[in-house]
Protein backbone atom coordinates (compact mmCIF):
# COMPACT_ATOMS: atom_id res chain seq x y z
CA UNK A 1 0.00 0.00 0.00
CA UNK A 2 1.51 3.30 -1.05
CA UNK A 3 1.56 6.11 1.50
CA UNK A 4 -0.34 9.30 0.65
CA UNK A 5 1.95 11.97 -0.77
CA UNK A 6 1.15 14.93 1.49
CA UNK A 7 -0.48 17.67 -0.54
CA UNK A 8 -0.47 15.82 -3.87
CA UNK A 9 -3.64 16.27 -5.90
CA UNK A 10 -2.60 15.16 -9.36
CA UNK A 11 -4.24 15.53 -12.70
CA UNK A 12 -6.69 12.82 -13.65
CA UNK A 13 -7.41 11.72 -17.19
CA UNK A 14 -10.83 12.60 -18.58
CA UNK A 15 -13.14 9.60 -18.04
CA UNK A 16 -13.43 8.81 -21.74
CA UNK A 17 -9.64 8.51 -22.03
CA UNK A 18 -8.91 6.77 -18.75
CA UNK A 19 -9.86 3.29 -19.95
CA UNK A 20 -7.28 3.69 -22.72
CA UNK A 21 -4.44 4.75 -20.42
CA UNK A 22 -2.59 1.92 -18.66
CA UNK A 23 -1.60 2.23 -15.02
CA UNK A 24 1.37 4.53 -14.39
CA UNK A 25 1.00 6.33 -17.75
CA UNK A 26 -0.03 9.91 -18.55
CA UNK A 27 -1.37 11.28 -21.82
CA UNK A 28 0.86 13.57 -23.84
CA UNK A 29 0.16 15.49 -27.01
CA UNK A 30 3.84 15.71 -27.81
CA UNK A 31 5.81 12.92 -29.36
CA UNK A 32 8.87 12.60 -27.15
CA UNK A 33 12.06 11.06 -28.52
CA UNK A 34 14.18 8.52 -26.65
CA UNK A 35 17.13 6.87 -28.33
CA UNK A 36 20.29 5.34 -26.94
CA UNK A 37 22.59 6.74 -29.60
CA UNK A 38 22.87 9.09 -32.57
CA UNK A 39 20.11 9.04 -35.16
CA UNK A 40 21.27 7.03 -38.21
CA UNK A 41 20.63 8.45 -41.67
CA UNK A 42 20.74 5.62 -44.17
CA UNK A 43 20.20 6.85 -47.74
CA UNK A 44 17.02 5.36 -49.23
CA UNK A 45 18.93 3.86 -52.17
CA UNK A 46 20.97 1.84 -49.64
CA UNK A 47 17.95 0.88 -47.57
CA UNK A 48 16.41 -2.58 -47.66
CA UNK A 49 14.14 -4.62 -45.46
CA UNK A 50 14.99 -8.26 -44.87
CA UNK A 51 13.20 -11.27 -43.41
CA UNK A 52 15.78 -13.88 -42.48
CA UNK A 53 16.73 -16.57 -39.95
CA UNK A 54 14.54 -19.63 -39.54
CA UNK A 55 12.49 -19.12 -42.68
CA UNK A 56 11.68 -21.28 -45.66
CA UNK A 57 12.41 -18.42 -47.99
CA UNK A 58 14.39 -15.31 -46.99
CA UNK A 59 12.88 -12.14 -48.40
CA UNK A 60 14.24 -8.68 -49.04
CA UNK A 61 12.76 -5.49 -50.43
CA UNK A 62 14.35 -2.27 -51.62
CA UNK A 63 12.75 0.99 -50.53
CA UNK A 64 10.77 1.25 -53.75
CA UNK A 65 9.65 -2.36 -53.56
CA UNK A 66 8.66 -1.86 -49.95
CA UNK A 67 6.49 1.16 -50.76
CA UNK A 68 4.80 -0.91 -53.46
CA UNK A 69 3.66 -3.55 -50.96
CA UNK A 70 0.01 -3.42 -49.84
CA UNK A 71 -0.20 -0.83 -47.07
CA UNK A 72 -2.51 -0.20 -44.14
CA UNK A 73 -3.28 2.95 -42.15
CA UNK A 74 -3.70 1.97 -38.50
CA UNK A 75 -4.85 4.47 -35.86
CA UNK A 76 -3.50 3.26 -32.54
CA UNK A 77 -2.63 4.33 -28.98
CA UNK A 78 1.05 4.03 -28.08
CA UNK A 79 2.61 3.66 -24.64
CA UNK A 80 6.24 4.43 -23.76
CA UNK A 81 7.88 2.84 -20.72
CA UNK A 82 9.03 6.34 -19.70
CA UNK A 83 5.36 6.92 -18.78
CA UNK A 84 3.84 8.80 -21.70
CA UNK A 85 0.89 7.55 -23.69
CA UNK A 86 -0.17 9.10 -26.97
CA UNK A 87 -3.70 8.44 -28.15
CA UNK A 88 -4.99 8.08 -31.70
CA UNK A 89 -1.70 8.14 -33.54
CA UNK A 90 -2.06 7.62 -37.28
CA UNK A 91 0.42 5.63 -39.31
CA UNK A 92 0.90 4.14 -42.74
CA UNK A 93 2.92 1.02 -43.28
CA UNK A 94 3.04 -2.63 -44.22
CA UNK A 95 1.51 -5.25 -41.95
CA UNK A 96 4.03 -7.73 -40.54
CA UNK A 97 1.59 -10.41 -41.72
CA UNK A 98 2.22 -9.30 -45.28
CA UNK A 99 6.00 -9.38 -44.76
CA UNK A 100 5.97 -12.84 -43.21
CA UNK A 101 3.60 -14.30 -45.78
CA UNK A 102 6.32 -15.19 -48.23
CA UNK A 103 8.76 -16.36 -45.55
CA UNK A 104 6.96 -19.59 -44.66
CA UNK A 105 8.09 -19.64 -41.04
CA UNK A 106 7.04 -21.52 -37.96
CA UNK A 107 9.69 -19.95 -35.73
CA UNK A 108 8.06 -18.78 -32.48
CA UNK A 109 10.27 -15.69 -31.95
CA UNK A 110 11.96 -12.94 -33.86
CA UNK A 111 14.51 -10.21 -33.39
CA UNK A 112 13.90 -6.86 -35.01
CA UNK A 113 17.20 -5.21 -35.92
CA UNK A 114 17.94 -1.65 -36.87
CA UNK A 115 20.47 0.73 -38.31
CA UNK A 116 22.69 1.83 -35.44
CA UNK A 117 22.76 -1.65 -33.89
CA UNK A 118 19.52 -1.58 -31.93
CA UNK A 119 17.65 -4.87 -31.49
CA UNK A 120 14.47 -5.98 -29.73
CA UNK A 121 12.92 -9.41 -29.34
CA UNK A 122 9.29 -10.32 -29.91
CA UNK A 123 7.12 -13.39 -29.85
CA UNK A 124 5.64 -14.15 -33.25
CA UNK A 125 2.16 -14.12 -31.73
CA UNK A 126 2.65 -10.47 -30.67
CA UNK A 127 3.27 -9.30 -34.22
CA UNK A 128 0.92 -11.40 -36.33
CA UNK A 129 -2.83 -11.30 -37.00
CA UNK A 130 -2.93 -7.54 -37.54
CA UNK A 131 -0.97 -6.56 -34.46
CA UNK A 132 2.16 -5.00 -35.98
CA UNK A 133 3.40 -3.00 -38.92
CA UNK A 134 6.55 -1.60 -40.43
CA UNK A 135 5.48 2.03 -40.68
CA UNK A 136 6.91 4.75 -42.91
CA UNK A 137 4.38 7.55 -42.44
CA UNK A 138 3.21 9.25 -39.27
CA UNK A 139 0.33 11.71 -39.23
CA UNK A 140 0.20 11.68 -43.04
CA UNK A 141 3.87 12.68 -43.41
CA UNK A 142 7.02 10.66 -44.06
CA UNK A 143 8.30 9.41 -40.71
CA UNK A 144 10.97 11.77 -39.29
CA UNK A 145 14.37 10.22 -38.74
CA UNK A 146 14.31 11.15 -35.03
CA UNK A 147 11.11 9.14 -34.71
CA UNK A 148 12.62 6.17 -36.51
CA UNK A 149 12.31 7.07 -40.19
CA UNK A 150 12.53 6.06 -42.90
CA UNK A 151 10.69 3.09 -41.33
CA UNK A 152 10.09 1.77 -37.84
CA UNK A 153 8.37 -1.21 -36.36
CA UNK A 154 4.97 -0.43 -34.85
CA UNK A 155 3.73 -2.82 -32.16
CA UNK A 156 1.21 -0.74 -30.24
CA UNK A 157 0.18 -3.52 -27.87
CA UNK A 158 3.64 -3.46 -26.23
CA UNK A 159 5.71 -0.68 -24.67
CA UNK A 160 7.14 1.41 -27.43
CA UNK A 161 10.78 0.32 -27.09
CA UNK A 162 9.57 -2.85 -28.85
CA UNK A 163 8.61 -0.67 -31.85
CA UNK A 164 12.19 -0.53 -33.09
CA UNK A 165 13.17 2.71 -34.84
CA UNK A 166 15.18 2.57 -38.09
CA UNK A 167 14.20 -1.08 -38.47
CA UNK A 168 15.88 -2.95 -41.31
CA UNK A 169 14.81 -6.49 -40.80
CA UNK A 170 13.27 -9.29 -38.80
CA UNK A 171 15.29 -12.39 -37.96
CA UNK A 172 13.12 -15.39 -37.07
CA UNK A 173 14.56 -17.48 -34.24
CA UNK A 174 13.74 -20.78 -32.54
CA UNK A 175 14.59 -19.28 -29.13
CA UNK A 176 13.70 -16.01 -27.43
CA UNK A 177 16.87 -13.89 -27.49
CA UNK A 178 16.77 -10.69 -25.40
CA UNK A 179 17.40 -7.52 -27.39
CA UNK A 180 19.06 -4.24 -26.41
CA UNK A 181 16.87 -2.86 -23.61
CA UNK A 182 15.78 -6.36 -22.61
CA UNK A 183 19.44 -7.01 -21.76
CA UNK A 184 19.63 -3.80 -19.70
CA UNK A 185 16.94 -4.76 -17.22
CA UNK A 186 13.77 -3.93 -19.10
CA UNK A 187 11.02 -6.51 -19.23
CA UNK A 188 11.29 -9.25 -21.82
CA UNK A 189 7.66 -8.97 -22.93
CA UNK A 190 6.66 -5.37 -22.12
CA UNK A 191 2.87 -5.45 -21.92
CA UNK A 192 1.77 -1.96 -20.74
CA UNK A 193 -1.58 -3.31 -19.48
CA UNK A 194 0.33 -5.58 -17.07
CA UNK A 195 2.85 -2.78 -16.33
CA UNK A 196 5.72 -5.02 -17.42
CA UNK A 197 8.33 -2.26 -17.37
CA UNK A 198 11.36 -3.93 -15.83
CA UNK A 199 12.57 -7.47 -15.29
CA UNK A 200 10.54 -9.16 -12.59
CA UNK A 201 7.46 -6.93 -13.09
Amino acid at each position, binding site marked *: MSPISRGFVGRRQPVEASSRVPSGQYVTR*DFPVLSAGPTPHTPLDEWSFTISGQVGEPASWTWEEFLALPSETPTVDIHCVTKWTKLDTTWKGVSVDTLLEAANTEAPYLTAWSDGGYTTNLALEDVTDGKAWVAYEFGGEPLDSEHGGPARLLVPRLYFWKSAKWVRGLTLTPDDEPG*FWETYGYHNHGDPWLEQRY*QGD
Partner: protein
Amino acid sequence: MAGTALPRRLSWQLGRVVEVVDETPQTKSIVLDVPGWQGHRAGQHVDVRLTAEDGYQAERSYSISSAPEDPHVVLTVERLDDGEVSPYLTDVLMPGDELELRGPIGGYFVWEEPLGGPLLLIAGGSGVAPFRAILRHWSAAHSSAPTRLLYSSRSLADLIYRRELLDGVYHGVEVRIALTREWPDDWQGHRGRIGDELLQQVAWVPSEHPLVYICGPTGFVEAAAQSLVAEGHDPRRVRTERFGPTGT
Protein backbone atom coordinates in the same frame (compact mmCIF):
# COMPACT_ATOMS: atom_id res chain seq x y z
CA MET B 1 26.27 -3.71 -27.19
CA ALA B 2 26.33 -6.49 -24.62
CA GLY B 3 24.75 -5.43 -21.36
CA THR B 4 24.58 -6.36 -17.77
CA ALA B 5 21.42 -8.10 -16.73
CA LEU B 6 19.55 -6.85 -13.67
CA PRO B 7 17.78 -10.01 -12.64
CA ARG B 8 16.11 -8.87 -9.44
CA ARG B 9 12.65 -7.38 -9.18
CA LEU B 10 12.61 -3.64 -8.68
CA SER B 11 10.37 -3.07 -5.69
CA TRP B 12 8.89 0.24 -4.61
CA GLN B 13 10.80 1.67 -1.68
CA LEU B 14 10.29 4.62 0.64
CA GLY B 15 12.87 7.36 0.86
CA ARG B 16 12.81 10.15 3.41
CA VAL B 17 13.63 13.67 2.28
CA VAL B 18 16.70 14.85 4.16
CA GLU B 19 17.16 18.15 2.37
CA VAL B 20 15.84 20.10 -0.60
CA VAL B 21 18.62 22.14 -2.23
CA ASP B 22 17.82 25.16 -4.40
CA GLU B 23 19.99 24.73 -7.48
CA THR B 24 18.36 27.41 -9.66
CA PRO B 25 14.97 29.18 -9.53
CA GLN B 26 13.51 26.26 -11.53
CA THR B 27 15.56 23.36 -10.25
CA LYS B 28 16.00 21.62 -6.93
CA SER B 29 17.97 18.66 -5.73
CA ILE B 30 16.07 16.33 -3.44
CA VAL B 31 18.36 14.55 -1.02
CA LEU B 32 16.90 11.24 0.11
CA ASP B 33 17.71 8.73 2.75
CA VAL B 34 16.63 5.38 1.27
CA PRO B 35 16.98 2.53 3.78
CA GLY B 36 17.98 -0.65 1.99
CA TRP B 37 19.02 1.14 -1.21
CA GLN B 38 20.77 -1.53 -3.29
CA GLY B 39 23.19 0.93 -4.85
CA HIS B 40 23.35 2.28 -8.37
CA ARG B 41 25.74 3.12 -11.15
CA ALA B 42 26.44 6.67 -12.24
CA GLY B 43 23.99 7.68 -14.95
CA GLN B 44 21.04 5.53 -13.88
CA HIS B 45 17.59 6.85 -12.97
CA VAL B 46 14.67 6.01 -10.71
CA ASP B 47 10.91 5.98 -11.04
CA VAL B 48 9.06 8.17 -8.56
CA ARG B 49 5.42 7.54 -7.62
CA LEU B 50 3.05 10.00 -5.98
CA THR B 51 -0.28 8.97 -4.43
CA ALA B 52 -3.22 11.33 -3.85
CA GLU B 53 -5.69 10.85 -0.99
CA ASP B 54 -8.20 9.09 -3.25
CA GLY B 55 -5.57 6.62 -4.40
CA TYR B 56 -4.81 8.30 -7.73
CA GLN B 57 -1.16 7.79 -8.64
CA ALA B 58 1.32 9.42 -11.00
CA GLU B 59 4.76 8.11 -11.93
CA ARG B 60 7.75 9.80 -13.55
CA SER B 61 11.42 9.03 -14.07
CA TYR B 62 14.29 11.18 -12.73
CA SER B 63 18.05 10.91 -13.08
CA ILE B 64 20.10 10.16 -10.01
CA SER B 65 22.61 12.97 -9.52
CA SER B 66 24.55 11.43 -6.63
CA ALA B 67 27.45 9.03 -7.02
CA PRO B 68 27.25 5.41 -5.94
CA GLU B 69 29.76 6.36 -3.23
CA ASP B 70 27.56 9.12 -1.79
CA PRO B 71 25.65 8.52 1.45
CA HIS B 72 22.31 9.72 0.03
CA VAL B 73 20.36 9.28 -3.17
CA VAL B 74 19.93 12.68 -4.82
CA LEU B 75 17.42 13.50 -7.55
CA THR B 76 17.73 16.79 -9.39
CA VAL B 77 14.33 17.93 -10.65
CA GLU B 78 13.53 20.76 -13.03
CA ARG B 79 10.13 22.33 -12.47
CA LEU B 80 8.03 22.08 -15.63
CA ASP B 81 5.34 24.73 -15.24
CA ASP B 82 2.64 22.57 -16.82
CA GLY B 83 3.95 19.40 -15.23
CA GLU B 84 1.98 17.12 -12.95
CA VAL B 85 4.77 15.69 -10.81
CA SER B 86 7.76 18.06 -11.00
CA PRO B 87 5.98 21.10 -9.41
CA TYR B 88 5.03 18.86 -6.50
CA LEU B 89 8.61 17.71 -6.06
CA THR B 90 10.08 21.23 -6.30
CA ASP B 91 7.37 23.25 -4.51
CA VAL B 92 5.60 20.99 -2.01
CA LEU B 93 7.99 18.29 -0.91
CA MET B 94 9.99 19.18 2.21
CA PRO B 95 12.44 17.57 4.59
CA GLY B 96 10.81 14.81 6.59
CA ASP B 97 8.37 13.86 3.81
CA GLU B 98 8.43 10.37 2.40
CA LEU B 99 8.83 9.71 -1.31
CA GLU B 100 8.09 6.42 -3.03
CA LEU B 101 10.63 5.33 -5.61
CA ARG B 102 12.06 2.28 -7.34
CA GLY B 103 15.31 1.71 -9.13
CA PRO B 104 17.98 1.96 -10.21
CA ILE B 105 16.87 1.74 -13.83
CA GLY B 106 18.81 1.78 -17.08
CA GLY B 107 22.13 0.15 -17.81
CA TYR B 108 23.38 1.85 -20.96
CA PHE B 109 23.68 5.56 -20.20
CA VAL B 110 26.08 4.65 -17.42
CA TRP B 111 29.72 5.38 -16.82
CA GLU B 112 31.88 3.40 -14.44
CA GLU B 113 35.54 3.90 -13.74
CA PRO B 114 36.71 0.75 -15.65
CA LEU B 115 35.15 2.16 -18.85
CA GLY B 116 37.89 4.79 -18.82
CA GLY B 117 38.11 7.60 -21.33
CA PRO B 118 38.80 10.01 -22.73
CA LEU B 119 35.38 10.90 -21.40
CA LEU B 120 33.34 13.70 -22.93
CA LEU B 121 30.09 14.73 -21.26
CA ILE B 122 27.80 17.11 -23.11
CA ALA B 123 24.83 18.55 -21.23
CA GLY B 124 21.96 20.81 -22.15
CA GLY B 125 20.03 22.37 -19.23
CA SER B 126 18.90 19.86 -16.62
CA GLY B 127 20.53 17.15 -18.73
CA VAL B 128 23.55 17.80 -16.53
CA ALA B 129 21.97 15.78 -13.67
CA PRO B 130 23.33 12.31 -14.56
CA PHE B 131 26.73 13.89 -15.28
CA ARG B 132 26.96 15.09 -11.69
CA ALA B 133 26.67 11.44 -10.68
CA ILE B 134 29.37 10.52 -13.18
CA LEU B 135 31.72 13.33 -12.09
CA ARG B 136 31.27 12.51 -8.42
CA HIS B 137 31.94 8.85 -9.19
CA TRP B 138 34.97 9.88 -11.27
CA SER B 139 36.31 11.78 -8.23
CA ALA B 140 35.47 9.14 -5.66
CA ALA B 141 37.04 6.38 -7.75
CA HIS B 142 40.16 8.52 -8.39
CA SER B 143 39.72 7.93 -12.09
CA SER B 144 42.60 8.88 -14.31
CA ALA B 145 40.38 9.09 -17.39
CA PRO B 146 40.84 12.50 -19.04
CA THR B 147 37.39 14.07 -18.69
CA ARG B 148 35.67 17.12 -20.12
CA LEU B 149 32.22 18.53 -19.44
CA LEU B 150 30.61 20.81 -21.98
CA TYR B 151 27.48 22.29 -20.47
CA SER B 152 25.00 24.57 -22.19
CA SER B 153 22.73 26.73 -20.04
CA ARG B 154 20.49 29.72 -20.72
CA SER B 155 22.22 31.97 -18.20
CA LEU B 156 24.45 31.91 -15.16
CA ALA B 157 21.34 31.93 -12.95
CA ASP B 158 20.09 28.79 -14.70
CA LEU B 159 23.37 26.95 -14.22
CA ILE B 160 22.73 23.85 -12.13
CA TYR B 161 25.54 22.86 -9.70
CA ARG B 162 26.99 26.29 -10.42
CA ARG B 163 29.23 26.49 -7.41
CA GLU B 164 30.77 23.04 -7.68
CA LEU B 165 31.31 23.38 -11.41
CA LEU B 166 32.78 26.89 -11.33
CA ASP B 167 34.84 26.36 -8.20
CA GLY B 168 36.68 23.42 -9.67
CA VAL B 169 35.47 20.83 -7.18
CA TYR B 170 36.10 18.17 -9.80
CA HIS B 171 39.81 18.75 -9.86
CA GLY B 172 41.24 17.64 -13.19
CA VAL B 173 37.97 17.79 -15.11
CA GLU B 174 37.93 20.44 -17.81
CA VAL B 175 34.63 22.26 -17.51
CA ARG B 176 33.47 24.39 -20.43
CA ILE B 177 30.26 26.31 -20.07
CA ALA B 178 28.20 27.84 -22.85
CA LEU B 179 25.61 30.46 -21.90
CA THR B 180 23.03 30.76 -24.65
CA ARG B 181 20.78 33.71 -23.70
CA GLU B 182 22.47 35.94 -21.15
CA TRP B 183 26.01 36.28 -19.87
CA PRO B 184 27.89 38.67 -17.61
CA ASP B 185 30.06 41.29 -19.34
CA ASP B 186 33.20 39.61 -18.09
CA TRP B 187 32.03 36.08 -19.02
CA GLN B 188 35.06 34.03 -20.00
CA GLY B 189 33.13 30.99 -21.21
CA HIS B 190 31.39 30.42 -24.52
CA ARG B 191 28.62 32.79 -25.56
CA GLY B 192 25.76 31.31 -27.54
CA ARG B 193 24.68 27.84 -28.48
CA ILE B 194 26.99 24.89 -28.80
CA GLY B 195 27.84 24.61 -32.50
CA ASP B 196 30.10 22.48 -34.67
CA GLU B 197 33.08 24.74 -34.04
CA LEU B 198 32.87 24.61 -30.24
CA LEU B 199 32.28 20.86 -30.32
CA GLN B 200 35.39 20.34 -32.42
CA GLN B 201 37.34 22.55 -30.07
CA VAL B 202 36.24 20.70 -26.96
CA ALA B 203 36.02 17.11 -28.22
CA TRP B 204 39.08 14.93 -28.60
CA VAL B 205 39.78 14.01 -32.21
CA PRO B 206 37.98 10.83 -33.40
CA SER B 207 41.27 8.90 -33.56
CA GLU B 208 41.49 9.13 -29.76
CA HIS B 209 38.17 7.26 -29.50
CA PRO B 210 36.56 9.35 -26.80
CA LEU B 211 33.54 7.93 -25.03
CA VAL B 212 30.81 10.53 -25.41
CA TYR B 213 27.64 10.99 -23.36
CA ILE B 214 25.07 13.56 -24.41
CA CYS B 215 22.02 14.44 -22.32
CA GLY B 216 19.50 17.21 -22.79
CA PRO B 217 16.44 18.23 -24.76
CA THR B 218 15.85 16.29 -27.97
CA GLY B 219 16.94 19.03 -30.38
CA PHE B 220 20.11 19.67 -28.42
CA VAL B 221 21.05 15.99 -28.33
CA GLU B 222 20.23 15.44 -32.01
CA ALA B 223 22.39 18.40 -33.05
CA ALA B 224 25.39 17.51 -30.89
CA ALA B 225 25.32 13.80 -31.79
CA GLN B 226 24.91 14.59 -35.48
CA SER B 227 27.82 16.99 -35.44
CA LEU B 228 30.16 14.51 -33.74
CA VAL B 229 29.22 11.66 -36.06
CA ALA B 230 29.72 13.92 -39.08
CA GLU B 231 33.15 14.81 -37.69
CA GLY B 232 34.07 11.12 -37.77
CA HIS B 233 33.26 9.92 -34.26
CA ASP B 234 32.13 6.30 -33.96
CA PRO B 235 28.34 6.35 -33.35
CA ARG B 236 28.80 3.32 -31.09
CA ARG B 237 30.91 5.49 -28.76
CA VAL B 238 28.20 8.14 -28.51
CA ARG B 239 25.52 7.45 -25.90
CA THR B 240 22.50 9.67 -25.66
CA GLU B 241 19.66 10.40 -23.32
CA ARG B 242 16.92 12.75 -24.45
CA PHE B 243 13.98 14.34 -22.74
CA GLY B 244 11.30 16.84 -23.39
CA PRO B 245 8.80 17.49 -26.13
CA THR B 246 9.74 17.62 -29.76
CA GLY B 247 7.14 20.13 -30.77
CA THR B 248 5.47 17.72 -33.17
